[in-house]
């Protein structure tokens, strides 16, 4: 079974890991180049700015930046589409499920081995790519203040592995439910993008209760103290910035060039600003939470796939007896038992009926019967 799973996955695995290897070559070379400049600059007095030559060096490889960032962004979804969605759906599409699920290997074991081989490979591939990307961007990331920004949080460290588990599970579940490869792939893409966006924009900020700092907009010396952000711990993520007026009511943009207070710069007097933020020290807890939540969702979907695949009628079966249909429990048992029966035991008429209804999508079957 393991051999079969590997044999069917071989081409995809070679393409995926071969591609990663190709990407790794320029990444390693230029990554060490950047690090060379970082260390050279640390000991040299002629370096302008903090790590400027290293930054310039990295800028020369804009294509690699785009490639690494873009690849890691789409990698989980692509793997879910191309490895997970066809996993079960293709068996249905080709009609080969009749062969594989009537062998001595139970459906549960079949699915377990498939998930173990293909699922592990997709998560591993995403993990490797994330490791490469995180390492390559290391020197420039260390200069960034905010590690939570949307453009980097999801394509560094462990979060992408959670996405990979989730995308794989969505692909699997879509394949089990829809039973057709292309719609399952499209569903995987759509669901993954939507869930990822919702987490990024709505849910992530609530992983931990944010902290708040409040202070007057206009400082004691009359200068505009919007610099309150400077007091935040390093690497903080400012979730929201609110303003309240002297009476404590929330207020929006004040004044404008025509307002009378603009003349004497008094528009902001009495206005308090509230910074709601997540401190930089929460970066790793947030990464693990993001990974954990997506993994959890993924495991739920995988569990659902197990439940569905063992408990449901398969296409091409004779209609279920009316009595059994009304009761859920016994019907499930009946369906499982009938499927376990060898194809030879079925009479020719029902077999012909099966093939008649399935022939457009079952070329393999057609050849054997011809």
């Amino acid at each position: 079974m393991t051999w079969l799973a590997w044999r069917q996955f071989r081409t995809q695995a070679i393409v995926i890991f071969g591609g990663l290897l190709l990407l790794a070559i320029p990444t390693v070379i230029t990554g060490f180049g950047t690090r060379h400049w970082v260390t050279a600059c640390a000991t040299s007095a002629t370096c302008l700015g903090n790590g400027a030559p290293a930054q310039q060096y990295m800028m020369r490889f804009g294509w690699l930046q785009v490639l690494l960032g873009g690849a890691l962004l789409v990698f989980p979804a692509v793997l879910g589409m191309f490895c997970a969605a066809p996993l079960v759906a293709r068996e249905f599409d080709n009609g080969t499920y009749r062969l594989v699920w009537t062998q001595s290997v139970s459906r549960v074991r079949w699915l377990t081995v498939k998930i173990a081989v293909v699922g592990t490979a997709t998560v591993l591939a995403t993990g490797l790519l994330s490791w490469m990307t995180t390492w390559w961007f290391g020197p420039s990331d260390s200069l960034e203040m905010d590690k939570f920004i949307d453009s980097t949080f999801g394509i560094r460290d462990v979060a992408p592995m959670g996405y990979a588990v989730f995308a794989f599970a969505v692909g699997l579940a879509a394949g089990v439910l829809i039973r057709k490869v292309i719609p399952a792939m499209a569903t995987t893409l759509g669901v993954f993008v939507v869930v990822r966006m919702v987490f990024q924009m709505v849910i992530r900020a609530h992983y931990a209760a944010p902290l708040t700092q409040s202070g007057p907009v206009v400082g004691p010396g009359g200068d505009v103290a919007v610099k309150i952000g400077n007091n935040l711990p390093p690497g903080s993520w400012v979730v929201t910035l609110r303003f309240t007026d002297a009476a404590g009511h929330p207020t929006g943009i004040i004044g404008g060039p025509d307002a009378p207070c603009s003349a004497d710069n008094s528009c902001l007097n009495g206005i308090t600003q509230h910074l709601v933020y997540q401190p930089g020290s929460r970066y790793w807890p947030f990464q693990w939470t993001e990974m954990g939540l997506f993994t959890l969702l993924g495991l739920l979907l995988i569990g659902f796939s197990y439940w569905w695949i063992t408990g449901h009628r398969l296409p091409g079966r004779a209609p279920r007896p009316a009595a059994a249909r009304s009761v859920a429990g016994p019907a499930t048992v009946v369906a499982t038992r009938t499927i376990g029966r060898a194809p030879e035991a079925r009479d020719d008429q029902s077999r012909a009926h099966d093939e008649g209804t399935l022939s457009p999508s079952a070329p393999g079957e057609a050849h054997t019967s011809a």
Partner: protein
Amino acid sequence: MTWVTWRQLRTQALVIFGGLAMLAVAAIITGLQIRNVANGCAAPTDCNLLVGIATSNYVWMELLLRGATLVVPVVTGMFLGAPLIAREFETGTYRMAWTQSVSRTRWLAVKVLIVGAASVLASGLVSWITTWWFGPDDSLQMDKFVDATFGIRDVAPLGYAAFAFAVGLTAGLLFRRVLPAMATTLVVFVAARMMVQMLVRQRFATPISATFAFKPGPGGSVKAGLIPDGSWISSEQIFDPSGHPVRELRFGPGDACVATNSCLNGYTQHVEYQPWNRYWPFQWTEFGLFLAIALVLIGFCFWWINGHRLPGSGPRVARTAAPRSDDERTANGQQAAPRGAVESNQPRLMGVDR
């Protein structure tokens, strides 16, 4: 034939254009609010801030529109272009589709016209929505050529869509399997798009060269005011007073010239740029380039589909075989699977249908 094509495209078309309609509703509602702000502000300096704030209120919409315009061409190429022929092979239905009274050329022509037009239309619509939505914000941007916006505005995405569709079609015809064709479409499209963006686009027209002397004094920004606003600077090179190119300016705070701001005296800067008024020529060139490649690929598909043996047909009979009917003869005189081979398929087809 048109009806068959529409019938087979129906579900995908509903999903794609239904999704676009939902996107359009959200874009129109939020876009009108941004326009209200843009129309309401009197002074241009004020507008920058207000429009910026109004746009950033809808980060999700920004992300959605950017992402959609970026991926819709390749998604339609993968999901509409790649399975177009590959699925016929994979499910064996090509045997039925190509043994009807409709010739393969006509079959492909109708498919390409309807499905290809739908793909290009989808990208055109999403690009139109995106261009409109970002309009107020874009009008504040100086450089319209930046990679982040050039490929997801105006007409360029239509060219990408045609190209992605053609790549999918060709990959499907060559591989005859859906999944490898889809994967190939993705990879080829991304590679071609990146290559054009990073290497080819700047060569659409010879850049204008200009050399400036660094002015003494603080700052030393020489380009400002000398190069038209919104230009795309493709290369910059600094030369020292003796005319040698400088790889890296090495002045530290300890150098004596820093105090008098004279470090850059005698240095010149050589700049190559594309002026902003080449934006539309560049857009049309990008569109035309991708469209031309697409047309070549589609032409290749027509040639290939007619001139090659199909799987499951009998071995090709030597040249002495009787000529086929007119509509199945290819332009270059090469013959597709002989009629006898097709006829020998009939019993097998019937065996399948039973």
